[in-house]
Each structure stands twice: as structure tokens, then as C-alpha cells.
């Protein structure tokens, strides 16, 4: 088994989100919360305390009417790879290896029972994709019956985040193993948000597999840390060297530019800073 794994070609699961298609309906957020037993409180008005593995941001071009343009940007965990494999901002800092980078899937895991709640990973994540359980989850009466049995609810005092619905990957792998198939089909493992998006704005698959749609859409360049070749594609804060696996598509220049920080009058994107 171990030898087989060693020779196996690694997958790199990623996402492409077409911002021109996203309507900001929030279905992805709802599906994510239901699928992953994400806790909530009676009063969720303070968004700095809300746990939203998938969060939809509203962006505007800052122009007055009628030139104003709006874009909705769904933000899951970016599953950063860093400049060398596994050197994502959060994984590299966790003192207890409670979060880890899977070389097999490219997914950044979170081990709830090992996390002791130092929150260093949250400080390291520029996307605010990590959330702390300030309270123990309290489900409304009867809701326990509707929780997903495949995802463990989290206790107070630990950090949680989007896992690209990793339990679905495990289930799909188990099924493929039982059927004697070495590889998963593209549609066998899909995240809840991907399936819930009514506009079909989210595409999910293996970025290392040229047959997968995500690979065709984003055209990641492995020689340049996965930088997309597609001129309409971009990644959030790419210049920081986080090397995310979530790609965004937009035909609008201002949206693509909103994905990263640029100096005034800066036209060309400079080479990302290298991090050891």
C-alpha cells in the first residue's frame, strides 16, 4: 500500500470560480454550513464572530452611478500550497501539527482533536478563512438529527475551516477502492458548494489532471507556482507567495485587479516575493 502510494501521481484538488457567473445568492454558503455541521448562534449579526467556511464578499468598482459595477466573490479556504509543497501560511506555523498539507490531495486539513486553540494559524491566514469556536455549538431542538454523520462537530476552543468537503473525498475513495478502481472520476468527488451553485459558477476538480475542467479553465503553470495562463484567471493575493488552489475568472479588469494589491500606477504584476 505504501509503495503504491509512493508511485502514485499526486492529485491537487482545486476550484475555479467564475465571478462573471456568481450572482451572490449565497447558496454555496448555506450548502457548506449544512454539509459540514458549521455551528451558528442565535444572533449572527457580528460577522467577526460568525463561522463561514465559505463566505461571499461583495465588491464594487467604487465608481458613481451609472458606472458602478458589482461583483460577488465567494471565498472558501484557498488550500495554499506555498512556494514549496506544504509550506502554506497556516501549516508552517501550527505548533502542534493540528493542520497539515496532504501531498496526496493538496488539501490543507484541520485536526480538531489536536488543535489546542492558539490561533496562530488564524493570524497567518490573509484570507480570514480560519475561524475559532468561541462557543460550544448549540443546535436548535431536533437539529442534531439533521447533522451530517460524516463530519465531526467541533468543540469550543478550536479552529476550523473549509476542508474542500474532505469527507466526500474519503467516501469516494472508499467506493473506488471497493470497486477496484485506482483513480476517481471527475464527478465522483465534488464539494457541496460546487453542487449547490445554481449558476454553475463553481467548478471543482484535480488541477494536476489535464482532463479535468478546472485544469482546462485555469491553465495552471506548474513552472510558476501554478500561476494561471488563462488571462482572465487570477488568484487572491498571489503576490504574497501563498500559492492558492482557488482560481477566479473574470472578464472585468477591475475585478482581476481587486484580487491583489498593486502600487498606484503599477501596470504589470511584479514577480511574487520568494519565501524561503
Amino acid at each position: 500500500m505504501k509503495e503504491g502510494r509512493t508511485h502514485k501521481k499526486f492529485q491537487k484538488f482545486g476550484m475555479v470560480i467564475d465571478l462573471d457567473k456568481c450572482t451572490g445568492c449565497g447558496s454555496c454558503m448555506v450548502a457548506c454550513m449544512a454539509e459540514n455541521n458549521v455551528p451558528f448562534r442565535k444572533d449572527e449579526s457580528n460577522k467577526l464572530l460568525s463561522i463561514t467556511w465559505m463566505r461571499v464578499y461583495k465588491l464594487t468598482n467604487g465608481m458613481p452611478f451609472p458606472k458602478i459595477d458589482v461583483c460577488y466573490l465567494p471565498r472558501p479556504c484557498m488550500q495554499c500550497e506555498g512556494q514549496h509543497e506544504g509550506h502554506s501560511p497556516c501549516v508552517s506555523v501550527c505548533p502542534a501539527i493540528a493542520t497539515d498539507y496532504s501531498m496526496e490531495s493538496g488539501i490543507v486539513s484541520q485536526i480538531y482533536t489536536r488543535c489546542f486553540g492558539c490561533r496562530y494559524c488564524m493570524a497567518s491566514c490573509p484570507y480570514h478563512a480560519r475561524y475559532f469556536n468561541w462557543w460550544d455549538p448549540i443546535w436548535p431542538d431536533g437539529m442534531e438529527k439533521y447533522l451530517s454523520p460524516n463530519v465531526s462537530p467541533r468543540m469550543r476552543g478550536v479552529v476550523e475551516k473549509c476542508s474542500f468537503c474532505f469527507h466526500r473525498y474519503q467516501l469516494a475513495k472508499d467506493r473506488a477502492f471497493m470497486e477496484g478502481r485506482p483513480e476517481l472520476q471527475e464527478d465522483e468527488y465534488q464539494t457541496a458548494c460546487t453542487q449547490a451553485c445554481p449558476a454553475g459558477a463553481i467548478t471543482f476538480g484535480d488541477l494536476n489532471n489535464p482532463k479535468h475542467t478546472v485544469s482546462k479553465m485555469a491553465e495552471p503553470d506548474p513552472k510558476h507556482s501554478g500561476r494561471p495562463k488563462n488571462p482572465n484567471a487570477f488568484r487572491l493575493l498571489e503576490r504574497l507567495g501563498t500559492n492558492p488552489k482557488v482560481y477566479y475568472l473574470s472578464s472585468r479588469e477591475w475585478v482581476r485587479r481587486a484580487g491583489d494589491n498593486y502600487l498606484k500606477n503599477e501596470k504589470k504584476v511584479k514577480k511574487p516575493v520568494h519565501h524561503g
Partner: protein
Amino acid sequence: MDSALIPKGVKRCPLWQFLLFIGAAGIVLLWGVYAMFLCWFKGLNQTNMNDYYGFALWIWADLAVIAVGGGAFFTGLLRYIFGKDALKNIINYAVLIGFICYSSALLILAIDIGQPLRGWFIFWHANVHSMLTEVAFCLSCYFGVLTIEYIPLILENRQIDKVPFFHHLGHNMHEVMAVFAATGAFLSFFHQGSLGGVAGVLFGRPFAFREGIFIWPWTFFLFTWSAAACGPCFTILVTKITEKVVGKKLVKDYAIELLAKISGWMLLTYTIAKFIDTWYWATVLAPSQGFTLMDFYTNNPLYGIWILITEIAICGLVPAAILMTPKGRKNPVALWIAISLAVAGVCLNRWVMVLQIMAVPVMTFDNWVLYFPSWQEVATTILPVAYGVILIAISYRYLPVFPNEAELNPIEPLPAEEAEEKSVDPPVDLELELKPAEA
């Protein structure tokens, strides 16, 4: 009533006065303990931290007490390794202050983590790539060293010293103290540095991120340097406050002046290094990530550019200039100003490297977020101060913390009425007879 425990040749206040003082500090301590238990039993929802401010007041307090507690390792290094014998007059107190600072830091960490019962995971499941792991290991080890350094002082208590075993143990521990001083300096170099590294490695946070040598970002070296520079200032500051409280001179001037002089030079070199680091960061590193310096200091009501100027110029250059010049450090008022500014500067630096990092938005569509601590956070942050005051009071009363105290404040065996008359006189000014600072 407790006179048998009080060191020979020194005078202490009446027991009732001492107990009253301990009681007042104890009330504050209990307030902090109550808040601490609230945080432990009800969770970190007792704080005003949130998902943007995962690091907040406590982590600042933690970094600040460790920085100012750096006086222990640096004074020990100067005394035992570099042979600055004049510092033997203040080394005990530096160790005691360091012990308080480091035990406080560990307590704060125990309150700060979301699952305190899993705190040991940091040692058991250690991620050797994490700066926080290095902090935890070095911090714990160094606390052990400080305990070893503090024990001989406890053994010097009049009653304990009567027991031959403890007497010899204390003597032998003194003999090998250089080994522990060297170990402490080594450990401190790494954990002070790692605390700087905690911020410096955050490559997702352009405000914090710095390049460096091998695995160590420049903040690693800057934190060690600043702790070595400002830690002794804190030792002097607490000594001066103690002298004011007890109304006596406790440490000879030349010891203070020597420490102040070394601190001044350390502070000057640190400030130059910090300036170079800031310049490179502002002109090369941050722009390469799409940020200008002012992106980090505008559009919010608190974190203006004043904070950078205050840190480098007012709390860096000014105290350095005072402490480096003989005239400056010999002038009591100037010395007070200098050491206070230096301590404020290092605390401000730690504040910036914890809270401002959290406040600065990184994504273009994100906003500045400010935070104000809850009373539970404030109480648990004051808790170590109350604990420190109590431990200092007890140590000062029953242990020979200041070796020159009896010499500086002689009590002659006079008849009762004469003694009473004598006690109201100011202490004999022995400084005139003392040699100037050896340097």
C-alpha cells in the same frame, strides 16, 4: 513577629503594614484570578477577541513581559560571562524580575489557549517548523533556569540558611551559576528571537513579514536585540520604583550607571538596526507585495504613522542618547525618563507586532478592524502585575535581594531612643565614598 525571618542588618516595615500592602495587591490578584477562571470555565468568549483579532491583549502582554524580563538573561550574561562584577549588586533583583515576568508569560499562555487542557500538545506533537514551538520549548526551559537562579536567593533566608544542607546547596549553586547564566543567555537568544519570528514568518501578512537569514526573519534578531537593550532598563525601572516605595537606596549608583550605559549602547545599535529594517521593508519588501508604507498607517483612527515615529525616535533615540552620556545617566530625572521611554518603546514595538498586524487589511476588499479588550482580558493582564508586586514584596522582606542594602542603610545598635531619632534621619550618603562606575 516575623523578625527572625528578616535578613540581618536591614530594617523592614511593621508586619501589619506589610500585610496591608499584600492585602491590597491581593485584592487585585483575586480579581484577575476570578477573570482567569471565567476564561477557563466559560471559554474565550469572555474576551473581545474575534476571528480578525485572534491575537490580542494577552499575546501583547506575553511578548511585553518577556521582552522586559530580558533584563535577567542580559544582566546575567554581563555579570557571569563578561565579568561585569559591579552588576552583582543588582543581579538578584534582575533574576527575581525575570522569574516574575516568565512565570507570568507562561500563565498568560495557559489562559490564552482555547483548550488549556491540551496545552501539552505543543511539546508532544511539536511542529519543529513553527516558531511558536521554539518559543514554548525555550520559554519553559528558561523558566527552569530562572527558577534555578532564584533558588539560591531563597536559600539565603536567615532561617533556611541555618540548615547545613540548604546552606551548602545554596553555596554550591552560586559556584556553578555561570553555567546557568550561559544556558539562560543561549535559551533567551532563541526564545526572544522566536517571538520575533512568530510575526516575521507570516508571509501572508505584509505588515509583519520580513526576509532574513536561513529560517530566521530579521524580526528574530531585532526582538532579541531589543529585549537585551530594554530588559535592563526595566530592571532599573523596577529597582527605582522599589527604592521609592521603601524610601531607601538599595543599589549603588555605579551598578545602575553601568547597566544604564550598556543599555544605552544596545538601544542605539538596536534603533539603527530597526531603522534599516523599516527602511528596507518600506521601500523594497512591502512594495514588492503591492503595498506602500502609508497603506499600513492610514485610514484608521489609531494606527497612524505617529506610532512608528514614537517607537523609533522618541522611545529609541531619545533614551539611547540619555543613557549613553555620563551626564544623562547620572541625572536622576533624565535617567527616569530614559528608562521609562525605553520600556514603553519595547512594549509599543510588541503591541505593533501583535495588534497592528491583525488590524491591517490584506485583501483589497477588506477593512481595518479595531478591537477593545473586555474586562476579563484587562483583569487577567493586570493579574501578573499584582502577582509580581506580591512576590517582590515577600522576597524583599525576607530575602537578601539587595546585597548592598545594609551598607547603604546602616542600622547601628544604639539605645532605643537614639535609634528612633536616628531612623528619621536620611541615610548616610555613602555614594561620595564609592568609586565611580568601573567603566
